[in-house]
């Protein structure tokens, strides 16, 4: 009886091992697509090994596609035009508009390279590079926002436009066993090419924010790639209305510092919201810009000031404060950065006051 039982166990185990071996062999042979050629914008050709996803393959070739989730298909950022890549997968459909599907737009992280592909990529992506840097300072801006200053090592300089963002690489640590990437706006002006600053708010259990807030130290090496994004100051002379909250300060700080350095004199009102005094930061630095940029006004507001704050400034939600100051927004343009709720409320407020929707610029984190 025991022998029969052991024989049965042996047969089942052997069968499982055989099937596992078959799967491994199938993986190595059937899914071996050989070298494939990627033709980019009908100009550049890259010969790459088949079988891998497009996002990581392009990264290995030094072409960085914007992505905030590291290729999990959960951010919808890595949209590329793949002219002969087939239909989008079910995992891509929620991210793609019908017109994008018609134009053969795909999520690069979901496209597996099985044959030669023709790609259309925006030219500005060719300027995106990977950078090695060193943490030179970490400063507490508030109880949950840290300012990170990075000195570039290789390459030693970066060119970017004020308002753009980078993707910070989080190395393997206790919350992740492989590198992950998260997007952060650069808060320093482009004039300093050797260093960049980031403002990073702690998100409970966030893979990157936990690493930055709990593990990263001055002197540590870090890797990032960039720059990315179109959230930059548009040329012209229209008055500017900027609205931000929390770590949404970062790109607007860079834009206004850049304006001050370049002597751009445009009427600008910057509304920045926080809950109480302990959540407010860089007030003196922003106020100082009022003397450097003719027509610039920094208007901080607290939604719930504490008695000990002795706050005499504006109070209320930042969109309510901005609404009190801006009865007519029809001639202005707006720059918004913060939570998706803030952006939604600010868009509603501004369009009610006559601002055309196309003159409202923001970083869409939704």
């Amino acid at each position, binding site marked *: 009886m025991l022998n029969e039982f052991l024989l049965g166990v042996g047969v089942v185990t052997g069968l499982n091992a055989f099937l596992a071996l078959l799967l491994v062999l199938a993986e190595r042979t059937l899914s071996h697509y050989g070298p494939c050629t990627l033709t980019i914008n009908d100009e550049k050709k890259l010969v790459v090994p088949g079988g891998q996803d497009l996002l990581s393959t392009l990264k290995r070739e030094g072409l960085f596609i914007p992505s*905030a*989730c*590291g290729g*999990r298909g*959960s*951010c*919808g*950022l890595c949209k590329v035009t793949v002219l002969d890549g087939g239909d989008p997968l079910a*995992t891509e459909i*929620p*991210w793609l508009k019908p017109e994008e599907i018609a134009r053969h737009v795909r999520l690069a992280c979901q496209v597996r390279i099985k044959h030669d592909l023709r790609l259309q990529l925006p030219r500005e992506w060719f300027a995106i590079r990977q950078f090695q840097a060193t943490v030179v300072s970490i400063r507490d801006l508030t109880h949950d926002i840290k300012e990170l200053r990075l000195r570039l090592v290789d390459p030693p300089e970066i060119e970017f436009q004020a308002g753009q963002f980078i993707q910070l690489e989080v190395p393997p640590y206790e*919350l*992740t066993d492989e590198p*992950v990437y998260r*997007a952060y706006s650069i808060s320093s002006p482009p004039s300093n090419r050797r260093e960049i600053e980031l403002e990073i708010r702690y*998100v*409970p*259990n*966030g*893979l990157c924010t936990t690493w930055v807030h709990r593990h990263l130290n001055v002197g540590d090496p870090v890797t990032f790639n960039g720059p990315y994004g179109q959230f930059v100051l548009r040329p012209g002379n229209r008055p500017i209305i900027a609205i931000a*909250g*929390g770590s*949404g300060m970062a790109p607007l700080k860079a834009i206004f510092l850049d304006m001050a350095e370049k002597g751009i004199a445009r009427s600008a009102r910057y509304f920045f*919201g*926080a*809950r109480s005094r302990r*959540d407010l930061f860089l007030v003196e630095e922003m106020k100082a810009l009022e003397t450097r940029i003719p027509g610039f006004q920094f208007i901080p507001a607290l*939604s*719930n000031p504490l008695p000990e704050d002795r706050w005499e400034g504006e109070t209320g*939600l*930042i*969109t309510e404060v901005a609404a009190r100051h801006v009865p007519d927004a029809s001639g202005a343009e707006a720059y918004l950065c*913060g*939570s*998706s*709720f*803030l952006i939604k*409320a600010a868009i509603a407020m501004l369009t009610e006051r006559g601002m055309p929707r196309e003159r409202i610029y923001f970083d869409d*984190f*939704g």
Partner: protein
Amino acid sequence: MKQSPELQKIQEAMRPGRLTKTGFLGSDSRPLADILAEDEATVARLGLTHAAIATRMAYFREKGEAGLGLAVDVPPHFEVRVDGVRGRLPCPFAHPGLYPKIFCQVHNQKTGETVTYSDLQIHLIGDHGFYEGRGSPYRLEPETLVQVLEITPEE
């Protein structure tokens, strides 16, 4: 409890790197059916339902949204902040659509305790009775939710 092929398929989708980076199960090696059954029993012992817990979570989520990313006071003694980060998450139980990465942080000022949960977790608890596996960094213990959010059985 016997695990159906459907649950086995869902459990596979919950592993790290399938739908999300960290997955939904943590270090929990039990069949999904057992994970669900244990939490079901816990919630029943507390005299509650998954729907009642999810409704309370959604209540704070809705109140917190008014802060536009900043914390707001919710009577009688809660501080709630609702914010989001870039990205969306799919339901591992294969419901269509994606849930934005919006998190709700509820601080009970009376007890000093805080819980944080996402839009997806409100759905997972309300519609599937799933609180994530043991060892998952995002697991929500039913007892903790009930205590911090002060959820009481309906009379």
